């Protein structure tokens, strides 16, 4: 990725949402301790969850949500055009997220399920990440994204420093926290191949990692397939289902 060159004196930022719960947008507002510092350094010019004014003179655009409808496609292309730097926030924008579960179902069925008898009025396309349609400069993965990682990216932009996501897996954060490995409790967790940066929040509270932050840079997916089937008695279809929850649109696939 290109290094985040410092933009204008007080960079203008915007926050947009595509098909999603907009929880990542809200996570920005939950940055209570540093939110005022951020507002001192950046000017928010367009943020539906937080303000009524709208401006299209934008340095950095943050977008959450998957591209899941024809209008999403138009919007993400417009965001790209209007924003010098485009950042995908959260699992939906980075990998398609749980929206992609519909891609494995019959289209007419899920449209009827969601929109009832008006289903024909709401066109849809297979859910995909923003990067499937436009160039994305930075990704802040996770469901929701880690708001502190958002603040970190903001710092990097201000300092003109390259922003890098952690390259290690969730196991590292679990070990640093002193957690008992969920495999030792008899659970199967995607921590060994999932990108760290969440502070291993799910395993810390006893829930298995579902891979919402996507895979590490060079995941050994052959090992995942072999180990989970040979050592933990899983069926390969079940392994695929585990990875499908958040990872459907990642480049690396289970062999």
């Amino acid at each position, binding site marked *: 990725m290109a290094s985040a060159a410092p933009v204008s004196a007080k960079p203008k930022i915007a926050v947009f949402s595509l098909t999603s719960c907009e929880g990542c947008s809200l996570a920005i507002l939950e940055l209570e301790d540093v939110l005022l510092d951020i507002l001192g350094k950046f000017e928010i010019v367009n943020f539906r969850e937080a303000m009524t004014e709208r401006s299209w003179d934008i340095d950095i655009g943050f977008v959450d949500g998957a591209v899941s409808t024809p209008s999403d496609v138009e919007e993400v292309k417009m965001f790209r055009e209007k924003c010098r730097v485009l950042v995908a926030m959260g699992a939906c924008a980075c990998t398609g997220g749980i929206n992609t579960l519909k891609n494995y179902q019959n289209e007419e069925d899920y449209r009827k399920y969601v929109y009832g008898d008006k289903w024909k009025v709401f066109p849809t396309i297979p859910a995909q990440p923003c990067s499937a349609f436009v160039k994305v400069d930075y990704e802040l993965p996770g469901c929701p994204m880690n708001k502190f990682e958002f603040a970190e990216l*903001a710092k990097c932009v201000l300092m003109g420093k390259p922003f890098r996501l952690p390259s290690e897996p969730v196991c590292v954060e679990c070990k640093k926290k002193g957690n008992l490995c969920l495999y030792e409790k008899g659970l199967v967790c995607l921590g060994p191949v999932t990108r760290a940066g969440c502070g291993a929040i799910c395993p810390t509270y006893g829930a298995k990692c579902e891979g919402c932050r996507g895979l590490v840079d060079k995941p050994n997916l052959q090992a995942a397939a072999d180990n989970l089937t040979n050592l933990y008695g899983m069926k390969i279809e079940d392994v695929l289902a585990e990875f499908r929850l958040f990872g459907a649109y990642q480049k690396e696939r289970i062999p």
Partner: protein
Amino acid sequence: MERVVTAKDLAALADDMLRAGRTVAGPVRRKERYFYEAVSRGADLAFDFNYCVYSPRSFFFPPGETLLTYSIGTNELNVAPEAPRTSPVIMGVHPCDCNAIGLLDAVFGSGVPDDHYLARRKDSVVVAVDCHGPCDPTAFCRDMGGNEAQEGFDVMLTPLNGGKGQAAERYLAAAATERGRELLAYNKVGKEPARADRDAAEKFREAKAANFSRRLPYAVEKLPAILDRSYNSLLWQVTAKRCYSCGSCNLVCPTCYCFTVKDVPDLSCASGKRVREWDGCQLQDFATVAGGHNFRPESSSRLRHRIFRKGKWIKEQQGRMGCVGCGRCDRACTAKISVVEIYTQLAEEA
């Protein structure tokens, strides 16, 4: 100096240390496992435990710590070093972990001495408790010599009763250092040992020697030579097929001491801190240097590196094995890659 102490005496001693303002840590039971934790009362400490999931390493070398803070003025850079202030009393450390502390002492104390580690270690007291047999099937401490504490402790507790499923209640406490003598002299803990107590301790040691068996098919002294012949073994690639490079084996290891250093600016960008965090040689970017070159891009080369460190290179540098045989890496590996199995297979090939 020797005293006979009960589990209650040890709990009371821990309470005395807490009242004196010390940080006291030791094995604490959390559901089905034990963990080293700082306690607020001595009664929470367990002296009769199988193993702690993690070693007490993090009390001296924490997973993350601030090395210094800085602020940038108009024409100046102000740097303030951060000095650790807690030097804990750790009660209930098995011989393998004592030896591991001894290795960390040697590593962090030699070359450029590591102030942060040494500050935590300076006034710390380590109370060891001997184990009567292997704590878990993964342990191979007998092979590595880890089951006999050579260093890294101030007091050794030898159980005088218990064993075979019965919890020990009485211990012969023997000071190994001046700090250990001071601890045992504190409030004159326990009683003067009687002849029968020394006999019971001797009996424990005899029984202990019989309880540990070897898992390696050869004496560990041969391991460096076996590794010498195994650098190009196919085993590295074959084993790496199962390896996630997740670093769990490193991060649970009581003798791993690698770390990475990062600068963390505040949002003001005018001040910040320099931190260090645990690192591990199995992780993808461990050997990536400025400019982006990675000296060990293949997981097979990283796997081999770890095995060579533990079985040969640290021995050459420090005069002692880099592995104490605690078995934590085997337990932590979700791919079930076993160091003992690797050592065994290499000997068959070599």
